[in-house]
């Protein structure tokens, strides 16, 4: 394997006395769909925040396509190709669905200030291009009919999908999804699994997925990392993880605990 898309090397982060993530090694290759699971509080979202630059590790290295990302601000990392969704949906509440996507495109430098001021041909062209691309993207996910609607007026499942569309608008190489299935019913979860597979293939990106729903994780992930109390306790294919005693113990407790 050549240089991995994302590599975490003994990444540790401490918040005061609490070690949220401890010596985490993680590797994601191009176009891999990798899962990150673990009981609540295991450090999964913290890992996301480390990867996206919201937190800085206390020690250890993180590299995207071989280039170090520690100390780089989140918006710069977005330009470098990392995008994400959030555990509690973070749409831009006062904007329309279309504008949410437009913003992400501006994050990717779609338009210059000077053009916006001069309002000449360059401006009209960039506006048209952005709107066209945004609508095309929304169309793929069947959200284009909501283009002018308020983002927060959408049904919950559509809001989650909008967040994914928005994240894709930054043209990422690596997409981080933070509990995208939360609050969905089984049918929606099936659709989500389809969606994630589709996104990975059509946009040719790597995906790192944090999820609690085992069916979703086992169903689509090629490889899985398991965290418990900030440490990696297992790594492997879904079959390997399913049978791993350490993983079972972390989620269900050991036999002794049952008797207590």
């Amino acid at each position: 394997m050549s240089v991995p898309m994302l590599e975490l090397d003994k990444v540790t982060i401490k918040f005061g006395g609490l070690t949220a993530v401890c010596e985490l090694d993680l590797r994601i290759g191009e176009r891999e769909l990798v899962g990150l699971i673990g009981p609540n509080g295991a450090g999964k979202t913290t890992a996301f925040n480390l990867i996206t630059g919201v937190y800085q590790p206390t020690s250890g290295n993180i590299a995207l396509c071989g280039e170090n990302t520690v100390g780089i601000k989140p918006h710069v990392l977005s330009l470098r190709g990392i995008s994400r969704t959030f555990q509690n949906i973070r749409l831009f509440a006062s904007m329309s669905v279309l504008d949410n996507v437009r913003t992400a495109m501006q994050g990717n430098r779609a338009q210059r200030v000077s053009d916006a001021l001069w309002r000449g041909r360059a401006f009209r062209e960039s506006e048209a291009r952005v709107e066209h691309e945004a609508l095309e993207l929304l169309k793929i996910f069947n959200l284009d009919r909501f283009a002018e609607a308020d983002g927060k007026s959408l049904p919950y499942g559509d809001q989650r999908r909008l967040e994914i569309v928005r994240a894709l608008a930054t043209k990422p190489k690596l997409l981080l999804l933070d509990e995208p299935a939360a609050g969905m019913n089984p049918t929606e979860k099936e659709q989500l699994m389809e969606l994630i597979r589709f996104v990975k293939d059509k946009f040719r990106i790597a995906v790192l997925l944090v999820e609690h729903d085992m069916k979703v994780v086992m169903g689509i992930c090629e490889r899985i990392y398991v965290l418990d109390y900030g440490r990696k306790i297992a790594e492997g294919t879904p079959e390997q993880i399913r049978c791993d005693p350490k993983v079972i113990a972390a989620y269900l407790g050991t036999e002794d605990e049952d008797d207590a």
Partner: protein
Amino acid sequence: MRGKEKIFLLVAIAAAVGLSMASSIFNRYYLGIAVDVGINIILAVSLNLINGHTGQFSLGHAGFMAVGGYTAAKLTLVFGASVPPAMQPLLFLAAILLGGTVAAVAGLAVGIPSLRLRGDYLAIVTLGFGEIIRVIFQTSEFFGAATGLTGITKMTTLGWAWAFAAITVYVVACIVNSTYGRGFIAVHDDEIAASAMGINPTRYKVTAFVIGAFFAGIAGALYAHHKLVLKPDGFDFVKSIEIVVMVILGGMGRTAGVILAAIILTILPELLRPVAEYRMIIYSLLIIALMLTRPQGLFTFGKKGAVK
């Protein structure tokens, strides 16, 4: 229609200058108020960029106004006599632009440290900066200390004030109503999500402060050459609040609403002249009532950032 914004701007400026030249037919008193309205529109729209669109709660806007006003006034006081009458307008333009630029620098100085602060804290720091600026002018002999600057030449006419008001509205509206402008609103709505989507919150916040301060400085320059006397007290915290109220009344972030609010809040005190002694009391009750009943502002038509 192609380029409708630019056409609108040119028409507005032409109208302003035209009215100004015919101004001798108007009542001087009303003319003065009209100039005040123009200046307040500049102040309100520029603050709206910072407070309304970008969501940075700034309570020190009067400070930027002071910087612009004092700078411009000093320039014309020093050089006014040596410039021939034909060149006076040019001198005035230079003074206005200089005032705006120095105010923009002040905006940079205030904006950068304020970046990591939120809500209450940001309000207090900007208040503090506004007060520091006031104290600096109050203790500076160069700027007349507590007595301030007097004997400023009357140069602000209806044309100047309204032309710049049109320019301010144009610039702010164009910047915000664009794909680029989504960044400001994104920073306001959710800074962390904006960051994750590639929007640099720092850049947008500082840009808002600098542009807002620039136009506040211009307003200050126009103000100085309209009132002819500049005292540090005139740029205190209460003045900043007056501008903030215009932005709130107009519905934070709605340019059209803010313009309307600026007009109303400039004319209202004049209408209240018969009860002038109750003016500020009514004003403060208005603020309380507004917050209790309709905090989103009185003019909530149009989407955030939409102009007309």
